[in-house]
Protein backbone atom coordinates (compact mmCIF):
# COMPACT_ATOMS: atom_id res chain seq x y z
CA UNK A 1 0.00 0.00 0.00
CA UNK A 2 1.32 3.42 -1.00
CA UNK A 3 1.11 6.41 1.32
CA UNK A 4 -0.37 9.01 1.36
CA UNK A 5 -3.83 7.60 0.70
CA UNK A 6 -6.19 9.66 -1.45
CA UNK A 7 -9.77 9.51 -0.18
CA UNK A 8 -11.04 12.86 -1.41
CA UNK A 9 -12.53 11.88 -4.77
CA UNK A 10 -15.30 14.49 -4.44
CA UNK A 11 -12.70 17.21 -4.71
CA UNK A 12 -11.10 15.83 -7.83
CA UNK A 13 -9.99 12.57 -9.39
CA UNK A 14 -6.76 11.52 -11.08
CA UNK A 15 -6.89 11.20 -14.85
CA UNK A 16 -7.43 7.59 -15.86
CA UNK A 17 -4.36 6.42 -17.89
CA UNK A 18 -6.72 5.33 -20.69
CA UNK A 19 -8.06 8.88 -20.80
CA UNK A 20 -4.60 10.39 -20.91
CA UNK A 21 -3.60 8.05 -23.71
CA UNK A 22 -6.60 9.13 -25.75
CA UNK A 23 -5.78 12.80 -25.21
CA UNK A 24 -2.06 12.83 -25.99
CA UNK A 25 -2.18 12.84 -29.83
CA UNK A 26 -4.39 15.93 -29.71
CA UNK A 27 -1.66 18.02 -28.14
CA UNK A 28 0.93 17.33 -30.80
CA UNK A 29 0.01 15.33 -33.89
CA UNK A 30 -3.63 16.44 -34.22
CA UNK A 31 -3.28 19.96 -32.87
CA UNK A 32 -5.70 21.56 -35.31
CA UNK A 33 -8.40 24.09 -34.51
CA UNK A 34 -11.75 22.33 -34.63
CA UNK A 35 -13.16 25.45 -36.29
CA UNK A 36 -10.72 25.27 -39.22
CA UNK A 37 -13.09 23.94 -41.86
CA UNK A 38 -10.74 24.00 -44.84
CA UNK A 39 -7.90 21.62 -44.04
CA UNK A 40 -7.22 18.20 -42.62
CA UNK A 41 -5.78 19.47 -39.33
CA UNK A 42 -9.09 21.13 -38.54
CA UNK A 43 -11.08 18.12 -39.74
CA UNK A 44 -9.17 15.74 -37.49
CA UNK A 45 -9.80 17.97 -34.48
CA UNK A 46 -13.45 18.43 -35.34
CA UNK A 47 -13.96 14.72 -35.81
CA UNK A 48 -12.43 14.01 -32.39
CA UNK A 49 -14.68 16.62 -30.79
CA UNK A 50 -17.75 15.06 -32.38
CA UNK A 51 -16.79 11.61 -31.12
CA UNK A 52 -16.45 13.06 -27.62
CA UNK A 53 -19.77 14.88 -27.96
CA UNK A 54 -21.43 11.57 -28.71
CA UNK A 55 -19.69 9.86 -25.79
CA UNK A 56 -20.89 12.55 -23.37
CA UNK A 57 -24.39 12.48 -24.87
CA UNK A 58 -24.53 8.69 -24.52
CA UNK A 59 -23.61 8.88 -20.84
CA UNK A 60 -26.48 11.31 -20.23
CA UNK A 61 -29.02 9.74 -22.57
CA UNK A 62 -28.96 12.90 -24.69
CA UNK A 63 -28.59 13.82 -28.34
CA UNK A 64 -25.02 14.89 -29.24
CA UNK A 65 -26.37 18.20 -30.54
CA UNK A 66 -27.50 18.98 -27.00
CA UNK A 67 -23.96 18.94 -25.57
CA UNK A 68 -22.13 22.28 -25.21
CA UNK A 69 -18.50 22.08 -24.14
CA UNK A 70 -17.29 24.49 -21.48
CA UNK A 71 -14.29 24.99 -19.21
CA UNK A 72 -15.92 23.08 -16.35
CA UNK A 73 -19.00 22.88 -14.21
CA UNK A 74 -18.61 26.34 -12.70
CA UNK A 75 -18.88 27.79 -16.17
CA UNK A 76 -21.70 25.39 -17.07
CA UNK A 77 -23.67 26.47 -14.01
CA UNK A 78 -23.06 30.15 -14.76
CA UNK A 79 -24.08 29.72 -18.40
CA UNK A 80 -27.20 27.72 -17.55
CA UNK A 81 -28.52 30.08 -14.88
CA UNK A 82 -27.41 33.46 -16.19
CA UNK A 83 -28.11 32.43 -19.78
CA UNK A 84 -31.65 31.28 -18.97
CA UNK A 85 -32.39 34.28 -16.73
CA UNK A 86 -31.35 36.65 -19.49
CA UNK A 87 -33.08 34.78 -22.30
CA UNK A 88 -36.39 34.34 -20.49
CA UNK A 89 -36.55 37.62 -18.56
CA UNK A 90 -39.70 38.64 -20.42
CA UNK A 91 -41.37 35.53 -19.08
CA UNK A 92 -40.39 36.00 -15.46
CA UNK A 93 -37.61 36.78 -13.05
CA UNK A 94 -37.98 34.17 -10.34
CA UNK A 95 -35.50 31.34 -9.77
CA UNK A 96 -35.78 28.52 -7.22
CA UNK A 97 -32.65 26.86 -5.88
CA UNK A 98 -31.54 25.38 -2.59
CA UNK A 99 -29.31 26.36 0.34
CA UNK A 100 -26.86 23.47 -0.08
CA UNK A 101 -26.06 24.06 -3.73
CA UNK A 102 -22.44 24.53 -4.76
CA UNK A 103 -21.20 28.13 -4.62
CA UNK A 104 -21.11 28.18 -8.42
CA UNK A 105 -24.93 28.06 -8.30
CA UNK A 106 -25.58 30.06 -5.12
CA UNK A 107 -23.26 32.92 -5.97
CA UNK A 108 -24.54 33.02 -9.54
CA UNK A 109 -28.06 33.40 -8.14
CA UNK A 110 -26.87 36.10 -5.72
CA UNK A 111 -25.37 38.00 -8.64
CA UNK A 112 -28.69 37.80 -10.49
CA UNK A 113 -30.50 39.06 -7.40
CA UNK A 114 -28.34 42.17 -7.53
CA UNK A 115 -29.46 42.59 -11.13
CA UNK A 116 -33.13 42.41 -10.13
CA UNK A 117 -33.99 38.69 -10.15
CA UNK A 118 -35.90 37.13 -7.29
CA UNK A 119 -34.44 33.92 -5.88
CA UNK A 120 -35.93 31.40 -3.45
CA UNK A 121 -33.35 29.30 -1.58
CA UNK A 122 -35.21 26.18 -0.42
CA UNK A 123 -34.10 24.74 2.92
CA UNK A 124 -33.24 21.05 3.24
CA UNK A 125 -34.63 18.51 5.67
CA UNK A 126 -32.49 16.68 8.22
CA UNK A 127 -31.57 14.07 5.62
CA UNK A 128 -30.22 16.75 3.26
CA UNK A 129 -33.07 16.52 0.72
CA UNK A 130 -35.44 19.28 -0.27
CA UNK A 131 -39.16 18.94 0.36
CA UNK A 132 -41.20 18.60 -2.82
CA UNK A 133 -44.12 20.32 -1.08
CA UNK A 134 -41.94 23.30 -0.32
CA UNK A 135 -40.77 23.33 -3.91
CA UNK A 136 -44.36 23.37 -5.19
CA UNK A 137 -45.26 26.10 -2.73
CA UNK A 138 -42.36 28.27 -3.86
CA UNK A 139 -43.41 28.26 -7.52
CA UNK A 140 -45.05 31.46 -8.80
CA UNK A 141 -46.22 32.55 -12.25
CA UNK A 142 -42.92 34.39 -12.54
CA UNK A 143 -40.75 31.30 -11.94
CA UNK A 144 -38.60 30.57 -14.97
CA UNK A 145 -35.97 28.21 -13.59
CA UNK A 146 -35.47 25.58 -10.90
CA UNK A 147 -31.83 24.73 -10.19
CA UNK A 148 -31.30 21.79 -7.82
CA UNK A 149 -28.17 19.66 -7.77
CA UNK A 150 -28.34 15.91 -8.42
CA UNK A 151 -25.86 15.00 -5.66
CA UNK A 152 -24.27 17.20 -3.04
CA UNK A 153 -20.49 17.55 -3.03
CA UNK A 154 -20.09 17.56 0.77
CA UNK A 155 -22.58 14.99 2.00
CA UNK A 156 -23.16 12.97 -1.18
CA UNK A 157 -26.93 13.12 -0.77
CA UNK A 158 -29.01 12.59 -3.90
CA UNK A 159 -31.93 14.95 -4.46
CA UNK A 160 -35.23 13.62 -5.85
CA UNK A 161 -34.37 15.00 -9.29
CA UNK A 162 -36.86 12.90 -11.25
CA UNK A 163 -39.70 14.23 -9.08
CA UNK A 164 -38.37 17.78 -9.34
CA UNK A 165 -38.12 17.42 -13.11
CA UNK A 166 -41.71 16.21 -13.29
CA UNK A 167 -42.95 19.18 -11.26
CA UNK A 168 -40.96 21.61 -13.41
CA UNK A 169 -42.34 20.04 -16.59
CA UNK A 170 -45.91 20.17 -15.31
CA UNK A 171 -45.53 23.87 -14.53
CA UNK A 172 -43.62 24.74 -17.72
CA UNK A 173 -40.51 25.81 -15.83
CA UNK A 174 -36.95 24.99 -16.91
CA UNK A 175 -35.06 22.54 -14.72
CA UNK A 176 -31.30 22.82 -14.36
CA UNK A 177 -29.31 20.32 -12.33
CA UNK A 178 -25.65 20.44 -11.34
CA UNK A 179 -24.81 16.76 -11.86
CA UNK A 180 -21.08 17.10 -11.34
CA UNK A 181 -20.86 14.61 -8.48
CA UNK A 182 -23.38 12.16 -9.90
CA UNK A 183 -22.58 11.96 -13.62
CA UNK A 184 -20.59 8.85 -14.41
CA UNK A 185 -21.10 7.52 -10.88
CA UNK A 186 -24.80 6.68 -10.80
CA UNK A 187 -27.27 6.22 -13.64
CA UNK A 188 -28.47 9.58 -14.90
CA UNK A 189 -30.71 10.08 -17.92
CA UNK A 190 -31.80 13.55 -19.00
CA UNK A 191 -35.15 12.25 -20.21
CA UNK A 192 -35.91 10.17 -17.19
CA UNK A 193 -35.05 13.17 -14.98
CA UNK A 194 -36.79 15.56 -17.41
CA UNK A 195 -33.89 17.94 -17.07
CA UNK A 196 -33.50 20.86 -19.46
CA UNK A 197 -30.00 21.89 -18.43
CA UNK A 198 -27.32 19.64 -16.87
CA UNK A 199 -23.81 20.62 -15.77
CA UNK A 200 -20.96 18.12 -15.70
CA UNK A 201 -17.20 18.29 -15.26
CA UNK A 202 -14.43 16.02 -16.55
CA UNK A 203 -12.15 16.09 -13.53
CA UNK A 204 -14.75 14.57 -11.22
CA UNK A 205 -14.94 11.48 -13.44
CA UNK A 206 -11.30 10.65 -14.10
CA UNK A 207 -10.88 13.17 -16.90
CA UNK A 208 -8.72 16.29 -17.01
CA UNK A 209 -9.32 19.58 -15.21
CA UNK A 210 -10.46 22.61 -17.17
CA UNK A 211 -13.16 21.00 -19.27
CA UNK A 212 -16.84 20.30 -18.73
CA UNK A 213 -20.13 20.34 -20.53
CA UNK A 214 -23.63 21.69 -20.35
CA UNK A 215 -26.54 19.68 -21.68
CA UNK A 216 -29.03 22.08 -23.28
CA UNK A 217 -32.31 20.47 -24.32
CA UNK A 218 -33.17 20.96 -27.98
CA UNK A 219 -36.63 19.46 -28.22
CA UNK A 220 -39.69 19.64 -26.02
CA UNK A 221 -38.86 22.32 -25.08
CA UNK A 222 -36.14 23.86 -27.20
CA UNK A 223 -34.07 25.70 -24.63
CA UNK A 224 -32.28 28.87 -25.60
CA UNK A 225 -29.55 30.54 -23.60
CA UNK A 226 -28.09 34.02 -23.87
CA UNK A 227 -24.35 33.64 -24.47
CA UNK A 228 -22.19 34.68 -21.55
CA UNK A 229 -18.90 34.55 -23.44
CA UNK A 230 -19.04 36.38 -26.77
CA UNK A 231 -16.81 35.70 -29.75
CA UNK A 232 -16.67 33.40 -32.74
CA UNK A 233 -20.03 31.78 -32.13
CA UNK A 234 -18.79 28.30 -31.31
CA UNK A 235 -21.02 25.67 -29.70
CA UNK A 236 -24.26 26.75 -31.37
CA UNK A 237 -23.50 30.34 -30.41
CA UNK A 238 -23.88 29.58 -26.72
CA UNK A 239 -20.20 29.42 -25.81
CA UNK A 240 -17.57 31.09 -27.92
CA UNK A 241 -13.90 30.23 -27.67
CA UNK A 242 -11.60 27.83 -29.51
CA UNK A 243 -12.44 24.33 -28.38
CA UNK A 244 -10.09 22.66 -25.91
CA UNK A 245 -9.72 19.62 -28.15
CA UNK A 246 -7.44 17.44 -25.95
CA UNK A 247 -9.59 18.24 -22.92
CA UNK A 248 -12.80 17.46 -24.77
CA UNK A 249 -11.34 14.17 -26.04
CA UNK A 250 -10.45 13.38 -22.43
CA UNK A 251 -13.95 14.23 -21.19
CA UNK A 252 -15.45 12.01 -23.88
CA UNK A 253 -13.19 9.07 -23.12
CA UNK A 254 -13.79 9.49 -19.36
CA UNK A 255 -17.55 9.47 -19.95
CA UNK A 256 -17.32 6.36 -22.13
CA UNK A 257 -15.30 4.48 -19.49
CA UNK A 258 -17.72 5.49 -16.74
CA UNK A 259 -20.66 4.31 -18.79
CA UNK A 260 -19.16 0.88 -19.40
CA UNK A 261 -17.79 0.34 -15.91
CA UNK A 262 -20.44 2.09 -13.80
CA UNK A 263 -22.32 -0.96 -12.59
CA UNK A 264 -19.23 -2.86 -11.44
CA UNK A 265 -17.53 0.22 -10.05
CA UNK A 266 -20.61 1.26 -8.11
CA UNK A 267 -20.99 -2.17 -6.54
CA UNK A 268 -17.32 -2.31 -5.55
CA UNK A 269 -17.27 1.20 -4.07
CA UNK A 270 -20.55 0.76 -2.24
CA UNK A 271 -19.14 -2.33 -0.52
CA UNK A 272 -15.97 -0.47 0.46
CA UNK A 273 -17.93 2.59 1.64
CA UNK A 274 -20.20 0.38 3.74
CA UNK A 275 -17.16 -1.39 5.17
CA UNK A 276 -15.72 1.99 6.18
CA UNK A 277 -18.99 3.05 7.80
CA UNK A 278 -19.61 -0.25 9.59
CA UNK A 279 -16.11 -0.41 11.02
CA UNK A 280 -16.25 3.14 12.34
CA UNK A 281 -19.55 2.38 14.05
CA UNK A 282 -18.08 -0.80 15.51
CA UNK A 283 -15.04 1.02 16.91
CA UNK A 284 -16.50 4.30 18.15
CA UNK A 285 -19.54 5.66 19.96
CA UNK A 286 -21.16 9.02 19.28
CA UNK A 287 -20.50 9.20 15.57
CA UNK A 288 -23.13 10.45 13.15
CA UNK A 289 -23.55 10.09 9.41
CA UNK A 290 -24.47 13.44 7.88
CA UNK A 291 -27.33 13.20 5.41
CA UNK A 292 -29.47 10.36 4.15
CA UNK A 293 -27.77 6.97 3.97
CA UNK A 294 -30.44 5.68 1.60
CA UNK A 295 -30.31 8.48 -0.97
CA UNK A 296 -26.56 8.79 -1.29
CA UNK A 297 -23.77 8.40 -3.81
CA UNK A 298 -22.31 4.90 -3.41
CA UNK A 299 -18.74 6.15 -2.92
CA UNK A 300 -19.55 8.87 -0.44
CA UNK A 301 -19.59 9.13 3.34
CA UNK A 302 -19.65 12.12 5.67
CA UNK A 303 -19.31 11.45 9.38
CA UNK A 304 -19.22 13.70 12.42
CA UNK A 305 -16.99 12.36 15.17
CA UNK A 306 -18.63 14.15 18.08
CA UNK A 307 -16.50 16.01 20.65
CA UNK A 308 -13.46 16.07 18.38
CA UNK A 309 -12.64 19.00 16.13
CA UNK A 310 -12.14 18.27 12.43
CA UNK A 311 -8.88 20.05 11.78
CA UNK A 312 -7.21 18.36 14.74
CA UNK A 313 -8.47 15.05 13.33
CA UNK A 314 -6.94 15.79 9.95
CA UNK A 315 -3.67 16.71 11.65
CA UNK A 316 -3.55 13.25 13.19
CA UNK A 317 -4.01 11.48 9.87
CA UNK A 318 -1.59 13.43 7.73
CA UNK A 319 -0.96 10.47 5.43
CA UNK A 320 -4.65 10.29 4.49
CA UNK A 321 -6.21 12.91 2.22
CA UNK A 322 -9.80 13.62 3.27
CA UNK A 323 -11.55 16.91 3.99
CA UNK A 324 -13.49 18.43 6.87
CA UNK A 325 -16.42 20.80 7.28
CA UNK A 326 -14.68 22.38 10.24
CA UNK A 327 -14.36 26.15 10.27
CA UNK A 328 -10.65 25.84 10.89
CA UNK A 329 -10.12 24.22 7.52
CA UNK A 330 -11.87 27.02 5.65
CA UNK A 331 -10.58 30.48 4.90
CA UNK A 332 -13.78 32.05 6.22
CA UNK A 333 -13.55 30.48 9.71
CA UNK A 334 -17.19 29.48 9.25
CA UNK A 335 -18.15 25.82 9.46
CA UNK A 336 -19.64 24.21 6.37
CA UNK A 337 -22.89 25.90 5.29
CA UNK A 338 -24.07 22.54 3.96
CA UNK A 339 -23.78 20.80 7.33
CA UNK A 340 -25.27 23.82 9.13
CA UNK A 341 -28.25 23.59 6.78
CA UNK A 342 -28.96 20.05 7.99
CA UNK A 343 -29.71 21.58 11.38
CA UNK A 344 -27.50 19.17 13.32
CA UNK A 345 -25.73 22.01 15.14
CA UNK A 346 -22.51 23.80 14.39
CA UNK A 347 -20.57 21.59 16.78
CA UNK A 348 -21.21 18.56 14.58
CA UNK A 349 -20.18 20.53 11.50
CA UNK A 350 -16.85 21.24 13.20
CA UNK A 351 -16.41 17.51 13.81
CA UNK A 352 -17.15 16.28 10.31
CA UNK A 353 -14.97 14.39 7.87
CA UNK A 354 -15.86 13.72 4.25
CA UNK A 355 -14.66 10.47 2.71
CA UNK A 356 -14.72 10.13 -1.07
CA UNK A 357 -13.81 6.72 -2.44
CA UNK A 358 -12.87 6.16 -6.05
CA UNK A 359 -11.53 4.05 -8.83
CA UNK A 360 -8.24 3.22 -7.09
CA UNK A 361 -9.43 2.87 -3.51
CA UNK A 362 -8.60 -0.54 -2.06
CA UNK A 363 -9.91 -2.55 0.87
CA UNK A 364 -6.48 -2.32 2.45
CA UNK A 365 -6.67 1.47 2.29
CA UNK A 366 -10.13 1.50 3.84
CA UNK A 367 -8.91 -0.65 6.73
CA UNK A 368 -5.86 1.56 7.22
CA UNK A 369 -7.99 4.71 7.33
CA UNK A 370 -10.40 3.13 9.83
CA UNK A 371 -7.63 2.05 12.16
CA UNK A 372 -5.70 5.28 11.95
CA UNK A 373 -8.71 7.53 12.40
CA UNK A 374 -10.14 5.41 15.22
CA UNK A 375 -6.90 5.82 17.15
CA UNK A 376 -6.78 9.56 16.58
CA UNK A 377 -10.43 10.01 17.61
CA UNK A 378 -9.81 8.02 20.79
CA UNK A 379 -6.68 10.00 21.59
CA UNK A 380 -8.36 13.36 20.96
CA UNK A 381 -11.42 12.38 22.97
CA UNK A 382 -9.11 11.63 25.88
CA UNK A 383 -8.17 15.29 25.75
CA UNK A 384 -11.62 16.63 24.90
CA UNK A 385 -13.36 18.48 27.75
CA UNK A 386 -16.67 17.92 25.96
CA UNK A 387 -16.30 14.14 25.87
CA UNK A 388 -15.37 14.18 29.56
CA UNK A 389 -18.41 16.27 30.45
CA UNK A 390 -20.76 14.05 28.47
CA UNK A 391 -19.35 10.98 30.18
CA UNK A 392 -19.98 12.72 33.52
CA UNK A 393 -23.60 13.18 32.50
CA UNK A 394 -23.50 16.89 31.63
CA UNK A 395 -26.00 18.01 29.00
CA UNK A 396 -23.84 20.19 26.74
CA UNK A 397 -26.85 21.88 25.19
CA UNK A 398 -27.85 23.24 28.59
CA UNK A 399 -24.43 24.72 29.34
CA UNK A 400 -23.86 28.45 29.28
CA UNK A 401 -21.00 28.82 26.81
CA UNK A 402 -18.97 31.96 26.52
CA UNK A 403 -18.88 32.44 22.76
CA UNK A 404 -15.90 34.34 21.45
Amino acid sequence: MKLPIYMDYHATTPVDPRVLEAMLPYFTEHFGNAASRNHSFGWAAEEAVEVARKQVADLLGANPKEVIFTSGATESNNLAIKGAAEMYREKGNHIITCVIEHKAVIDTCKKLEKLGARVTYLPVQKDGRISLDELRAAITDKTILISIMTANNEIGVLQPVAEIGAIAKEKGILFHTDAVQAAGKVPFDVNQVKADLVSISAHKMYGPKGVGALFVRRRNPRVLLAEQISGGGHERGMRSGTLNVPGIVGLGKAAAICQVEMAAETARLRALRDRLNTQFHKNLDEIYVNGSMEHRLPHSLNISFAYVEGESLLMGINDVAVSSGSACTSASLEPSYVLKALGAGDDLAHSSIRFGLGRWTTEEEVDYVVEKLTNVVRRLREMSPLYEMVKEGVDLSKMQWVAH
Partner: protein
Amino acid sequence: MAYSDKVIDHYENPRNVGSLPKDDANVGTGLVGAPECGDVMKLQVKINPETGVIDDAKFKTFGCGSAIASSSLATEWLKGKTVDQALAIKNTDIVNELALPPVKIHCSVLAEDAIKAAIADYQKKREDGKAVVLADAHAQPTA
Protein backbone atom coordinates in the same frame (compact mmCIF):
# COMPACT_ATOMS: atom_id res chain seq x y z
CA MET B 1 -2.00 24.65 6.27
CA ALA B 2 1.56 24.28 7.45
CA TYR B 3 2.05 24.03 11.20
CA SER B 4 5.18 25.07 13.06
CA ASP B 5 7.30 22.29 14.53
CA LYS B 6 6.34 23.46 18.02
CA VAL B 7 2.62 23.19 17.29
CA ILE B 8 3.13 19.70 15.90
CA ASP B 9 5.20 18.72 18.93
CA HIS B 10 2.51 19.89 21.38
CA TYR B 11 -0.20 18.21 19.29
CA GLU B 12 1.65 14.91 19.19
CA ASN B 13 3.01 15.04 22.74
CA PRO B 14 0.62 17.26 24.65
CA ARG B 15 1.89 18.22 28.10
CA ASN B 16 -0.31 17.91 31.15
CA VAL B 17 -3.47 16.48 29.61
CA GLY B 18 -5.99 15.54 32.26
CA SER B 19 -8.16 16.81 35.05
CA LEU B 20 -7.67 17.94 38.64
CA PRO B 21 -10.43 17.48 41.23
CA LYS B 22 -12.53 20.54 40.51
CA ASP B 23 -14.11 20.61 43.98
CA ASP B 24 -10.70 20.87 45.68
CA ALA B 25 -10.44 24.30 47.37
CA ASN B 26 -6.96 24.77 45.95
CA VAL B 27 -7.94 23.98 42.37
CA GLY B 28 -9.17 26.66 39.98
CA THR B 29 -10.98 25.64 36.79
CA GLY B 30 -11.41 27.74 33.68
CA LEU B 31 -13.76 26.60 30.90
CA VAL B 32 -13.79 28.92 27.89
CA GLY B 33 -14.98 28.81 24.29
CA ALA B 34 -18.06 27.18 22.83
CA PRO B 35 -18.66 23.95 20.89
CA GLU B 36 -20.42 25.78 18.05
CA CYS B 37 -17.34 27.97 17.60
CA GLY B 38 -15.18 24.89 17.24
CA ASP B 39 -13.05 25.29 20.35
CA VAL B 40 -13.49 24.72 24.08
CA MET B 41 -10.63 24.79 26.56
CA LYS B 42 -10.67 23.52 30.11
CA LEU B 43 -7.62 24.63 32.04
CA GLN B 44 -7.04 23.86 35.71
CA VAL B 45 -4.44 25.07 38.19
CA LYS B 46 -3.63 23.74 41.63
CA ILE B 47 -2.29 26.51 43.81
CA ASN B 48 -0.39 26.20 47.06
CA PRO B 49 -2.35 28.52 49.39
CA GLU B 50 0.74 29.17 51.55
CA THR B 51 3.05 30.30 48.79
CA GLY B 52 0.59 31.30 46.06
CA VAL B 53 2.62 29.21 43.60
CA ILE B 54 0.98 27.03 40.95
CA ASP B 55 2.01 23.47 41.80
CA ASP B 56 0.18 21.73 39.01
CA ALA B 57 -1.72 22.56 35.83
CA LYS B 58 -3.83 20.38 33.53
CA PHE B 59 -5.85 20.94 30.39
CA LYS B 60 -8.34 19.36 28.06
CA THR B 61 -9.12 21.02 24.75
CA PHE B 62 -11.63 20.50 21.96
CA GLY B 63 -10.23 22.42 19.04
CA CYS B 64 -7.74 22.55 16.22
CA GLY B 65 -4.07 21.69 16.57
CA SER B 66 -3.17 25.28 17.41
CA ALA B 67 -5.77 25.40 20.19
CA ILE B 68 -4.41 22.16 21.64
CA ALA B 69 -0.85 23.46 21.41
CA SER B 70 -1.76 26.84 22.97
CA SER B 71 -3.36 25.23 26.01
CA SER B 72 -0.62 22.61 26.34
CA LEU B 73 2.03 25.35 26.29
CA ALA B 74 0.04 27.39 28.81
CA THR B 75 0.03 24.54 31.34
CA GLU B 76 3.75 24.07 30.83
CA TRP B 77 4.38 27.75 31.55
CA LEU B 78 2.02 27.92 34.51
CA LYS B 79 3.75 25.34 36.66
CA GLY B 80 5.99 27.01 39.22
CA LYS B 81 4.64 30.48 38.55
CA THR B 82 2.95 32.66 41.15
CA VAL B 83 -0.59 33.82 40.51
CA ASP B 84 0.64 37.28 39.56
CA GLN B 85 3.22 35.87 37.15
CA ALA B 86 0.55 33.65 35.62
CA LEU B 87 -1.77 36.59 35.10
CA ALA B 88 1.03 38.39 33.28
CA ILE B 89 1.11 35.76 30.50
CA LYS B 90 -0.14 37.39 27.32
CA ASN B 91 -1.63 35.73 24.27
CA THR B 92 1.13 37.34 22.18
CA ASP B 93 3.71 35.36 24.16
CA ILE B 94 1.92 32.18 23.01
CA VAL B 95 1.67 33.43 19.42
CA ASN B 96 5.41 34.10 19.36
CA GLU B 97 6.44 30.85 20.99
CA LEU B 98 4.28 28.69 18.70
CA ALA B 99 4.69 30.89 15.59
CA LEU B 100 0.92 30.94 15.11
CA PRO B 101 -0.36 32.42 11.83
CA PRO B 102 -2.86 35.33 11.99
CA VAL B 103 -5.91 33.04 11.54
CA LYS B 104 -4.90 31.13 14.66
CA ILE B 105 -4.43 34.09 17.00
CA HIS B 106 -7.85 33.45 18.52
CA CYS B 107 -6.48 30.14 19.86
CA SER B 108 -3.89 32.03 21.90
CA VAL B 109 -6.53 34.50 23.09
CA LEU B 110 -8.60 31.58 24.28
CA ALA B 111 -5.63 30.16 26.18
CA GLU B 112 -5.03 33.50 27.92
CA ASP B 113 -8.74 33.65 28.78
CA ALA B 114 -8.55 30.11 30.16
CA ILE B 115 -5.63 31.01 32.44
CA LYS B 116 -7.49 34.06 33.75
CA ALA B 117 -10.70 32.10 34.23
CA ALA B 118 -8.93 29.32 36.14
CA ILE B 119 -7.24 31.77 38.50
CA ALA B 120 -10.44 33.77 38.97
CA ASP B 121 -12.21 30.53 39.91
CA TYR B 122 -9.51 29.72 42.48
CA GLN B 123 -9.71 33.23 43.93
CA LYS B 124 -13.49 33.10 44.09
CA LYS B 125 -13.30 29.78 45.93
CA ARG B 126 -10.90 31.37 48.43
CA GLU B 127 -13.25 34.32 48.99
CA ASP B 128 -16.28 32.06 49.31
CA GLY B 129 -14.29 29.75 51.58
CA LYS B 130 -13.44 32.60 53.94
CA ALA B 131 -17.07 33.70 54.00
CA VAL B 132 -18.19 30.17 54.84
CA VAL B 133 -15.58 29.83 57.55
CA LEU B 134 -16.64 33.14 59.11
CA ALA B 135 -20.33 32.39 58.85
CA ASP B 136 -20.15 28.92 60.27
CA ALA B 137 -16.90 28.28 62.07
CA HIS B 138 -18.19 25.02 63.45
CA ALA B 139 -19.19 23.47 60.21
CA GLN B 140 -17.55 20.12 59.73
CA PRO B 141 -16.64 19.06 56.27
CA THR B 142 -18.25 15.81 55.34
CA ALA B 143 -15.68 13.22 54.52
